């Protein structure tokens, strides 16, 4: 753990030092390049902000309405049948839309079950091996105005389901009673 903490602490400072010294060595006008890049970043964020707002509001409404609990109730017989704890359904569903929205639910679960419970471990592995699909897809395709995304969504869902299934199996193998 200490090594990993050290790596994550060092990562960003090292990136700064590495890129700036590399730029200086190649005689790049580093500050000018930096400013140009920042301007690009501004434009990217301005472009994705409307999508972001739309999705965050939709997830906010979904959470407040109690619809997540309803979906969980409907899905729980199936999820119990495949040994997937129903308490993880809202997290998996929200993570599909937006990862910042899922974070609140993950912390709630840690509060209730603790991070070292079966649910806590499974959530940790599952979140570490799945990606936000809806948000990513809408932002990336919106920027280039592609309407027909063909088999992208199905491919992303298949690969993320594989990640979830692997997390469930690995949790039972490694930490199951």
């Amino acid at each position: 753990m200490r090594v990993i903490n050290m790596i994550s602490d060092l990562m960003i400072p090292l990136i700064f030092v590495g890129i700036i010294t590399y730029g200086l060595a190649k005689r790049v006008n580093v500050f000018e390049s930096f400013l140009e890049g920042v301007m690009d970043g501004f434009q990217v964020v301005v472009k994705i902000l409307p999508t972001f707002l739309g999705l965050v509001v939709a997830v906010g409404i979904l959470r407040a309405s109690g619809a997540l609990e309803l979906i969980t109730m409907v899905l729980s017989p199936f999820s119990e049948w495949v040994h997937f704890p129903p308490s993880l359904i809202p997290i998996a569903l929200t993570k599909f839309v937006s990862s910042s929205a899922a974070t609140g639910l993950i912390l709630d679960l840690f509060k209730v079950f603790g991070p070292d419970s079966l649910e806590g471990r499974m959530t940790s592995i599952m979140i570490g091996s799945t990606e936000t699909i809806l948000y990513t897809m809408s932002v990336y395709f919106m920027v280039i105005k592609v309407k027909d995304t063909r088999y992208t969504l199905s491919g992303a869902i298949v690969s993320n389901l594989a990640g979830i299934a692997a997390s469930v199996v690995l949790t039972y193998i490694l930490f199951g009673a």
Partner: protein
Amino acid sequence: MLNKIWSGMILLSVIVAAFTGNIGEVGTAAITSSKEAITLGLTLLGVISLWTGLMRIGEDAGMMDGLAKKMKPLLRWLFPDVPDDHPAQKHIATNFIANLLGLGWAATPPGLEAMKSLQTLNPDKQRASKAMCTFMIVNMSSLQLIPINMLAYRAQYGSANPSEIVGPAILATLISTLVGVAFAKIMERVVR
């Protein structure tokens, strides 16, 4: 696609709320989450711009070309329709590496650049090319090796060993990525 999902989410929520008596909360949630989106957006503006600034230095120094060159065999296999030394290769390589390192917010700018470059190769501008589908599927298959956020949350909530999930998370990530790549490769052959 998003049209239906987005409106479906909101309509379903309002209908459910009407039955569960949470209709008041829904109104409040709409307002607070729009505020939350802008607050998060401002953080995003700072972090992403800082990163694209740094990245531009690396790009102007020729760093990304070097990266793309090292990954060329993989990129050539994944994206047979992208010609060698096309800018798309460089952006895809940068996006994959940022994702691998768990710098999700840093992966977005090169990812969007990659899509723009792929669009220049796309004959039908309304429809995703095979290269775009493959790129998006791999990108969304979770490439991140060490889930740093999760480690932080686990530690914060008193886990006895926050990093015990790193090994299985890497394995699960690998599985999801392999399945994604296999799916993309099969579809590439099946569809026209």
